[in-house]
């Protein structure tokens, strides 16, 4: 589904990702872990097409197509979804109106009829229940005045609505209390299926207790320095990232 080869990304002229390889097949959940500044979020944002993240080398293909050649909105319509680490507050844009526009943009893209207000509300009600989204959140401006937990739930709610093929979660767990973390994780787990893949970017192992990954990759100084199964996350929890920092030898190895 997603094939990344030797991806290099610069931000404001500084090379952050120095050659990342990643292969994600449908149905898989990949966790990307790493210390602060290792390039985790840069990877997520570059894949979503953020204009400040400049790809300087390598490639990324989504279902065989050149992902990097697509505009951010085309990536989204094709089925790549990024849950933002810092969801943006947009004053004056009604959340429900925004969600309907996003959903219909995707439906139009695939030649499906747009949903009318009734059909949309029905769908919303269904999805909102799972994520414990209060109906009032729909009538407020997008993310405006939302608590940290509400913002993250709103991201996952959008994901549930847009049903992407590939979802990239950028530190979705940061700032969440345990209750909110459960709600968000349930939302994600409820969407796991053989056709859908997840890339979960996180600093902490805690999230992976709830969203159990198939693979864990450790990013350090812009490169993946170690990959393994879910047990790697536990090892990191115990030992920290120090032993994996690029250029240092693993302790006891």
């Amino acid at each position: 589904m997603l094939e990344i080869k030797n991806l290099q990304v610069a931000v404001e002229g500084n090379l952050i990702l120095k050659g990342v390889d990643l292969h994600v097949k449908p149905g898989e959940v990949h966790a990307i872990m790493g210390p602060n500044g290792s390039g985790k979020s840069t990877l997520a944002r570059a894949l979503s097409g953020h204009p400040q993240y400049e790809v300087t080398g390598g490639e990324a293909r989504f279902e065989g197509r050149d992902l990097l050649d697509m505009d951010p909105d085309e990536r989204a319509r094709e089925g790549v979804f990024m849950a933002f680490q810092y969801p943006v507050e947009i004053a004056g844009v009604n959340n429900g109106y925004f969600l309907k526009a996003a959903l219909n943009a995707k439906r139009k893209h695939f030649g499906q009829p747009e949903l009318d207000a009734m059909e949309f509300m029905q769908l919303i009600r269904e999805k909102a229940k799972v994520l414990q989204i209060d109906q009032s959140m729909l009538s407020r401006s997008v993310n405006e005045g939302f608590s940290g937990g509400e913002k993250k739930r709103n991201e996952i709610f959008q994901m549930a609505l847009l049903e992407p093929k590939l979802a990239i979660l950028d530190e979705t767990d940061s700032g969440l209390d345990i209750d909110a973390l459960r709600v968000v994780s349930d939302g994600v787990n409820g969407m796991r299926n053989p056709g859908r893949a997840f890339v979960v970017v996180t600093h902490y192992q805690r999230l992976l207790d709830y969203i159990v990954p198939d693979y864990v990759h450790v990013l350090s100084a812009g490169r993946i320095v170690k990959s393994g199964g879910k047990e790697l996350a536990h090892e990191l929890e115990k030992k920290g990232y120090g032993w994996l920092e690029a250029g240092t030898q693993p302790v006891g190895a």
Partner: protein
Amino acid sequence: MTQVAEKLQPWMAVLEQRGTDGPRWLQDMRARAATAFAELGFPTNRDEEWRFTSVAPIASAEFQAAPSARVSLGEPDLAGFLYSGSEHRIVIVNGLFSAELSRAPNLPQGVRAGSLAAAVTEHPEVAQRYLGQLAEFNTRAFSALNTALAVDGAYVYIPDGVILEQPLQLLFVTTGAESGAPLMANVRTLIVAGDRSQSRIVETYVGPPGSVYFTNAVTEVAMGEGAVMDHYKVQEESQAAFHVASMHVHAVRASNFSSHSFSLGGRLVRNDVNAHLDGEGAECTLNGLYLADGERHVDNHTEIDHAKAHCPSHEIYKGILGGKARAVFNGKILVRQDAQKTDAKQTNRALLLTADASINTKPQLEIFADDVKCTHGAAIGQLDEDALFYLRARGLTHFEARDMLIHAFAGEILERVRIEPLRQALEAELYAQLAKDLAEIDGA
């Protein structure tokens, strides 16, 4: 003769032809206003209040002060300017009341809505008491010009305790001149709201699209104790027209005045709103939305004079500028020594759609009381890149995302319009203009 006076010469000739009808006090006032104008002359860029707005195109032009004959318009001419549901309307054509076009069926007892010239003779106590008392024509040149030359206008009187259920629309039409110099219309409005009265007034300024004329408007609003008024001004003049207007509000104890100013048309536009909070607990809200493109210039000056204690004021002005448009926003808040517990909040934002559009903006807080809360904020710039990206990351195209953000920006002011058909009409007009501007930007 000084150079300034020489330039004013054609205007002095016009002033000599001012109206001679009406009672003695009115003629005296016109004469005093004419003298004031002769002394003041037109403001220049050396005048702080006019630093960024040059009125030279008005001062140096020749205008016909009044049409040689009454221009007759028919119902179809008004169609585009009446929002649906405006049952009560006063129509003023080139400064003169039109009985044929005005409608005010079933107004509550004692309410007057009609010709200002008629009110001067038929309702003399009220007219004499208020007319010219708020417009500061001794210090304001355009107000002086208007006071000297206006022969008629709109008059609204709402007795104590009366609630106007229906909004009242005042429609000011300036027609192009049929021949000769462009027309100047000195449009005058007097609104007297009795104690505890409640009303919604919509002033709409229009003219034939593309034609050159000069609307010089002055509105005086006297608010009684506990009176509540929602005032809307819709400026949709021809995009080649000059529009200079000032509204002067006197608010006494516990009254509540809201102004919503929509400035969409005009080539050179100046809107002044002055609110004098002259009684404890008087509250005022000044909201504004302006749109300009091409080479148009729009200047909004507001002044809230907090003269008494416990008066809240709220102000939000927003502008959207395309092409090479230029805008000015000056928001003065004066808090006098006696105005303790003042709570004044001012926000001023402008969206520049092009690199050539520009704005000069200045909050101006003058505070002489010590126990007050005054805040102001200004934000000028382009669309928020983060918000644009967020919307695109959900599948909206760049254009869809941009339009959504621009509409949201304007929506914050539009949604405060509490007359639904008017809100819809404004939204349609605004979005149509924006669509045109954005298409030009995309095509460029």
